[in-house]
C-alpha cells in the first residue's frame, strides 16, 4: 500500500491523526485480533497443556504432540487422516484445475453466444452449502433411489454401478469428486478472468503469425495464466486441509466406513468435541489444530517462496 499520500493528510497534526486512526481502524483491529488472532495463539498455547478429570490444567510442554505422533492410539488415526487428506487434495488438483482451465478456455472463445448463461449455470453449485450438496449426492448415488444406477444402465454401463459412498475402497475418492463438482466454479471463474485480461495485441500477433486457436491457447494464453492457476492451487490446499462439512454431513463424525473418509477436519472435531467413542479433549484438540496450522503454513510458504518467485520471472 505504498500509495502517494496527499500532502494535506501528511501535514496533519499528530494528535489528530492518532484520533482518526483510532476511530477508523479501532473496531476492525479489535474484533479481528480478539476473535481471530487471539484464538489462534491461545489454541497453540493450550496445546502445551493437559487437563485432568477435575478440569485443572497443567503445563506439559510438547507431550501432547509426542502422544499425537508417537502413541499408536493417536498416531494411527492421525496418519490415516493426513493420508486421506492428501488423497482428497490430489483428486482436487488432478480434476479441478484441468476442468476449470478447459471450461474457462471455452468460455473465453471470442464471439461465443450464451456466455453469461453458461457462466451462471456452471457456477451455481459453488454457491450452495456443502451440507446440501453432500446430502443431495448421497441420495443420487444411493442404491435405494437408483438414479445413478438407472443413468448408467441407460447408457449400457449398468454393471459399473456400485454403492461408491458406502465402500471403503471408493468412498473417499467419491467424496473428493463431489467436492470437485461443487468447487470447480472457482478455478473456472478466476482463470476466465485472467484469460480476459490478456492483452488483445498478443493474441492478434499470434494470429497474424498463423497460429490456430488451439495453439494460441496452449502456447500463449496458458503460460500467462499460470500465476492464477497456482493461486487457485494454494487456495484449494488451504480449503482442503481445513475441510470438514462435506465428510461430516455425508458420513458423520466417525467418517466411515471404518474411518476410510476421515480427514484432518473430522479428526480434529472428534478429538476436540468428542463423539460416540470418546470424550472431547480440548487440549489434544488444540494440539491437532496446531498441527493443522503448521501444515497449512507449510503449504503457504512453499507457494510464496517457490511458486511465486519462479512465476515473477515470467510476468510481463
Amino acid at each position: 500500500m505504498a500509495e502517494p499520500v496527499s500532502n494535506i493528510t501528511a501535514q496533519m497534526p499528530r494528535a489528530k491523526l492518532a484520533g482518526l486512526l483510532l476511530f477508523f481502524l479501532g473496531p476492525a483491529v479489535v474484533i479481528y485480533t480478539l476473535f481471530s488472532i487471539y484464538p489462534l495463539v491461545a489454541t497453540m498455547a493450550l496445546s502445551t497443556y493437559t487437563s485432568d478429570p477435575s478440569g485443572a490444567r497443567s503445563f506439559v510442554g510438547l507431550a501432547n504432540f509426542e502422544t499425537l505422533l508417537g502413541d499408536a492410539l493417536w498416531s494411527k488415526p492421525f496418519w490415516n487422516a493426513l493420508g486421506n487428506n492428501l488423497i482428497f487434495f490430489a483428486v482436487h488438483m488432478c480434476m479441478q484445475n484441468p476442468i476449470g482451465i478447459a471450461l474457462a478456455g471455452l468460455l473465453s472463445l471470442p464471439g461465443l453466444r450464451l456466455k453469461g448463461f453458461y457462466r451462471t449455470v456452471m457456477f451455481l453449485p459453488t454457491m450452495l452449502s456443502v451440507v446440501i450438496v453432500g446430502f443431495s449426492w448421497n441420495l443420487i448415488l444411493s442404491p435405494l433411489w437408483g438414479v445413478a444406477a438407472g443413468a448408467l444402465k441407460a447408457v449400457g454401463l449398468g454393471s459399473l454401478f456400485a454403492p461408491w459412498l458406502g465402500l471403503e475402497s471408493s468412498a473417499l475418492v467419491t467424496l473428493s469428486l463431489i467436492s470437485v463438482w461443487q468447487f470447480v466454479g472457482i478455478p473456472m471463474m478466476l482463470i476466465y478472468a485472467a484469460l480476459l485480461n490478456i492483452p488483445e495485441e498478443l493474441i492478434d500477433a499470434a494470429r497474424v503469425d498463423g497460429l490456430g486457436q488451439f495453439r494460441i491457447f496452449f502456447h500463449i494464453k496458458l503460460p500467462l495464466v499460470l500465476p492464477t492457476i497456482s493461486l487457485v492451487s494454494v487456495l484449494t490446499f488451504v480449503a482442503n486441509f481445513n475441510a470438514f462439512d462435506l465428510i461430516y454431513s455425508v458420513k458423520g463424525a466417525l467418517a466411515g466406513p471404518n474411518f476410510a473418509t476421515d480427514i484432518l477436519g473430522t479428526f480434529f472435531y472428534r478429538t476436540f468435541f468428542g463423539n460416540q467413542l470418546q470424550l472431547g479433549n480440548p487440549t489434544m484438540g488444540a494440539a491437532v489444530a496446531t498441527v493443522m496450522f503448521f501444515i497449512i503454513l507449510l503449504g503457504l510458504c512453499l507457494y510464496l517462496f517457490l511458486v511465486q518467485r519462479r512465476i515473477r520471472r515470467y510476468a510481463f
Partner: protein
Amino acid sequence: MTAEQRAKSLGVHLVLIAYSLLAVGPILLVVMNSFKVRSAIFGSPLAPPDAATFSLVGYEKVFRSSHILTYYSNSLIVTLVSMALVLLFGAMAAWALTEYRFRGSTALALFLSIGIMVPIRLGSVAILNMMRSAGLNDTLTALILVYVAQGLPMSIFILSEFIQQIPRDLRDAARCDGVPETRIFFEVVAPLLRPAIATVAVFTIVPIWNDLWFPLILTSSDSTHTVTLGVQQFLGQYITDWNSVLAALSMAILPVVMIYVILSRQLIAGLTSGAVK
C-alpha cells in the same frame, strides 16, 4: 461462417451444455422430486411432477416437525448483521490504511491479511472457551462476532483496492473546503464503494450463510440454529423419510438459488474483477 467453423462452434456448445447439465442436474433432480408423492419419487425419479404425482407432503412435515422458520430468521440475522459490520468496519479500516501515512501501517496491513489465508476455524478450541466464559455460548452474537472477524481481512483487502481507484482530487477538494475527515469518508468515499459490495458479498455472505462448523460448535439449542445446521440435523433425524428429506434440501437450496439468479451478474462481475488477483 464456414461449415468448419460452424461445426467447431457446435462442438463447443455441446461441451458447455453437457457440463451445464452436470452442474444443475443434481440440484434440479432434488427440487423436482421434493414436489412428488413417495411412489413417484422412486417410480420415475427423472419425470417432473404432474397432476397425479404432485404433493407437498414433505414440506408440510418439515414445517410441522422442525423449526425451519426460526432457522431462516437466525440465518438472516446472522448473515445480514455480519455483512453490515464487515462492510462498515472493513471500509473504515481500508480507508485509514490507504489514506493516512503512519508508522507501522505496512505491518498492520500484513497483520490484517493473515486472516485471508489462515482459517479462523483452527482457533475453535479457544473461541469456544472465550464464548463460554463471556456467557455468549449458544447466542447469535457469538456467531456474528466470529463471522465479522473472519470476513474483515478479505473485505479490507478488496475495499483498499477500490478506495485507491477513487480520484484523489475528490477527497482533497473536500479537505480544502474544511470538511472533517469523518464526513469525507461517510459522505464522499463510502457512497462510491457501492460497486464493491457485490465483490465483498461473494467472499463474506456466502461462506457465512453456508457455514456448518461454527453453528455446530457454538450453538446447541434449536432457537439458535441456522438453516445449514438445522437442515443438517433434520436430515440426520428423518433420513428414511424421503419426502421430508427432499423438501428440507429444497428449502435450503431455493432461497440461495433465487438470490443468486437475481444477483448473479454482479456477483460474477465482482468475482472476475481485478480485486481477486
